């Protein structure tokens, strides 16, 4: 029983990370209708930017202040990177068939991965411990760590903030409008470009934050680290219903849990296959995912 609980905690912890990254995928798909393959690389850049910023400005000792600085730094860096990628690579293709954007996204993703290997060096680096991990208390025989609580907390806070933005603010309403009818929104006085950029920025910031959290917990970072997390998060987004925020979060948590149960009770090497099996089953039986909406195709 204790083992089950441990697996559950691990799963939720990782699931929150998937949720944070999945939000990025789902938001971009909702607004632009394209799968942003490069999102996992923005995640990776979040970790690396924080690494270099921490080194440059010298805040690599554990302290709450440094932790916040790290998060802010990563968030800022990823916002800029996400914004630039959108402007340079995706905007020119906005009116082209979707396949072109997809291919370009793959290209950008590879560019970051291999460029990262060249610029940062392909060997893994050790991420600074920005906050001291402490075993806080015991619950049913399992030690609860500060880092995990922080991960849950930050994820939850991010989701709450995002929900607030999307549902209660003007910008959020504009975003929902653009994702629904981008051809009409300019008539309503909404600048599509600004909204799209805003979407990318928010998604990227979330990914950057997730990256910092993960890197503190698992201090090994390398330019290809986005791959596995990105793939799983993407599956989570589709699982939950691509285009739906709640779907991304629920999908992320469920996928995290599922993976950990498989790992714990089965073979570790089937982990990657699990996400895809879930994905394919969902796509066959409920293609729009858990929370996705069924858009009727007008002939």
């Amino acid at each position, binding site marked *: 029983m204790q083992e089950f609980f441990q697996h559950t905690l691990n799963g939720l912890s990782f699931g929150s990370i998937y949720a944070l990254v999945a939000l990025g995928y789902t938001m971009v798909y909702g607004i632009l209708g394209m*799968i942003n393959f490069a999102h996992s690389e923005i995640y990776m850049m979040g970790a690396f930017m924080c690494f270099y910023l921490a080194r440059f400005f010298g805040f690599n000792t554990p302290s709450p202040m440094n932790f916040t600085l790290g998060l802010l730094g990563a968030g800022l860096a990823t916002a800029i990177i996400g914004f630039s990628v959108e402007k340079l690579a995706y905007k020119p293709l906005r009116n082209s068939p979707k396949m072109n954007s*997809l291919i370009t996204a793959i*290209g950008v993703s590879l560019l970051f991965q291999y460029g990262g290997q060249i610029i940062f060096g392909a060997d893994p680096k050790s991420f600074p411990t920005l906050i001291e991990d402490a075993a806080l208390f015991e619950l049913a025989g399992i030690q609860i760590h500060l880092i995990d609580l922080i991960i849950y907390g930050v994820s939850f806070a991010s989701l709450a903030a995002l929900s607030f933005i999307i549902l209660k603010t003007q910008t959020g309403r504009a975003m929902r409008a653009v994702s629904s009818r981008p051809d009409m929104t300019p008539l309503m006085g909404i600048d599509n470009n600004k909204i799209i950029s805003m979407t990318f920025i928010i998604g990227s910031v979330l990914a950057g934050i997730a990256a910092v959290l993960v890197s503190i917990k698992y201090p090994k970072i390398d330019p290809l680290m986005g791959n596995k997390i990105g793939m799983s998060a993407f599956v989570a987004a589709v699982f939950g219903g691509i285009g739906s925020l709640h779907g991304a979060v629920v999908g992320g948590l469920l996928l995290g849990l599922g993976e950990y149960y498989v790992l714990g009770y089965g073979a570790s090497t*089937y982990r990657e296959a699990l996400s*895809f099996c879930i994905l394919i089953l969902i796509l066959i039986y409920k293609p729009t995912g858990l929370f996705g909406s069924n858009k009727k195709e007008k002939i």
Partner: protein
Amino acid sequence: MKKLIIFLGSVIVLGIVLNFALNSYIQAIVISFMINAIMALSLNVITGLADQFSLGHAGLMAVGAYTSAILSKEVFADHWYLIPVTVLCAGLTAAIVGYLISLPSFKLKGDYLAIVTLGMAEIVRVLLLNWNHVGGPRGYNGIIKFPEFSYAYIFVVTLLSLVFVACYRLKYSWFGRNLWALNEDDIAAEVMGLDLTKTKRQAFVISSFMAGLGGGIYSHHLGYISPNSFSFLVSTQILIMAVLGGLGSMSGSVIAALILTILPEALRSLPTGSLDIRMIVFPIILIAMMILRPQGIFGRSELINFCKEKKWIKS
């Protein structure tokens, strides 16, 4: 038919000449190019002609490669002259797998299909990773190769020519036209009585068969395969070749495969020190192409049309 035989004959003669003129490193590149061409052609059938985005061709290649390797090692006891048989079986197995994949998938559109094919390829890869009999993650070693480059060359060139001719004629046949109709406007095509799902499925099976052939030769070319040789990156590389050549252009795929096989090797000679810029070149080409010339080199038309018309910019 006669043209094909003349062509084949001249290429084979060229091959025998090359056998003596080149070292085995270049010979390996030649075979590599032809394998890539077959893979690109196979992807072109489904993504170019049928406009069904497949990100999972590496998985089909893997199925072909492992089938052919297992047959060679275990059933045919390393007789190299049975390699063509194993390659054929590889193609058939991949076709069966392709059929199974296509069963649930073609209700889905566009992006979703891409995801499902990607998922299938990853599942294949993970299954192979766990299959200890074929070495699992450490790979399958000691696969028999053709004893002489000229044999390998003749076989692969013949195969490539057959695949190429098949694709070419497919494109201009009634089946190809069905695919084009599906491509242009699937709802209208359905209204005209075209069974969409069946057509797409057939195209996918054909595509998988060719991918399996490519995989089969691949394993006999390298002598060593591992599940990581068939990752998403490989699917992407095949995609880049098909896109660069032009989705729907068969000769384009072959030429793009040639360029993209030679390019990394040529770049290896560049004195860039410890920087490896070869891997960056691929994505840069891809992005630049998508932004500047998304139809690739030939677009939908073939090399022969290009030579006839002088309109090189528009296509």
